[in-house]
């Protein structure tokens, strides 16, 4: 592997540190999963960090954390930190993923089967 062409630019971890304003842990206890659905509850403002504004614009309709990460081209961990701030400020609503733990509810599984059968 050549180090000469190594990209230390925009993908460097430091950048994520900057855009997450130095937070490395999500604020509060909002457990954000890859499939937690996020919905905007506020309009973007000019004074807001651009990443926050971008998330608010994206989430007019419910969007999973994974989809936000994909559209913003940011790692999930960075998006999670940004979202935790927005959740704490009540600018977005986080609709928790169904926690099946080790024992998925049979009613939930029935609903999924029913939906798949229509695919």
């Amino acid at each position: 592997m050549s180090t000469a062409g190594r990209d230390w630019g925009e993908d460097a971890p430091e950048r994520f540190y900057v855009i997450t304003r130095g937070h490395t842990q999500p604020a509060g206890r909002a457990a954000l999963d890859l499939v937690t659905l996020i919905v905007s509850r506020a309009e973007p403002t000019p004074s807001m960090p651009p990443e926050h504004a971008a998330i608010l614009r994206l989430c007019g309709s419910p969007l999973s954390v994974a989809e936000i990460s994909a559209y913003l081209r940011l790692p999930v961990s960075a998006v999670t930190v940004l979202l935790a701030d927005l959740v704490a400020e009540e600018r977005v609503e986080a609709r928790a993923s169904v926690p099946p733990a080790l024992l998925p509810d049979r009613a939930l599984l029935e609903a999924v089967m029913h939906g798949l059968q229509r695919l």
Partner: protein
Amino acid sequence: MDFSASDTVRGPADEDLLPDSAAAAVKVVVVGGFGVGKTTLVGAVSEIRPLTTEETMTQAGADVDDLAGIERKSETTVAMDFGRISISDELVLYLFGTPGQERFWFLWNGLFEGALGAVVLVDTRRLEVSFDVIGRLEDRGVPFVVAANAFPGAPAHPDEELRLALDLPPEVPIVACDARVRESGRDVLLALMHYLYDLAGSRAAR
């Protein structure tokens, strides 16, 4: 990736928007060796064009990027392709599949936590690449089904031969599939749901 240009972030197409009634989501993880058709399977059943998400992981680099005499942590970027199936107006199923080095999937924070279960996609010509994956799922207690992707020229193994070769417990379902075909991918997911349903029943009865 420049946020001064964040106005140009492209979001979902209008036809890909979820209704505001979408209240909860569940996930299934598709695992398997490189080139086994995970992304193909995700794409076949997804209602949206598959998206890619990334995570950067730091690992004290023992066997990774071993630079002699230099102690450093290695950064690894792991990408996952994923798709989406609207189950109802309220419930959404996400399907994650990842290319790349399987040993990293388990470092991905939260990928398996809360997942309903997993699909192990295998290429019957190269079963050995699936051993590690199956062992790790078993260690973590993640329920899974095995789907044998029908590659042209791949030998059609009877299920019991596959079970023996993969050292699978008798209760783990094995299904044949063509990862390119939506109905086939759907049937794999249904097999997983039926299996989970049975597991939930047997546990509740205990």
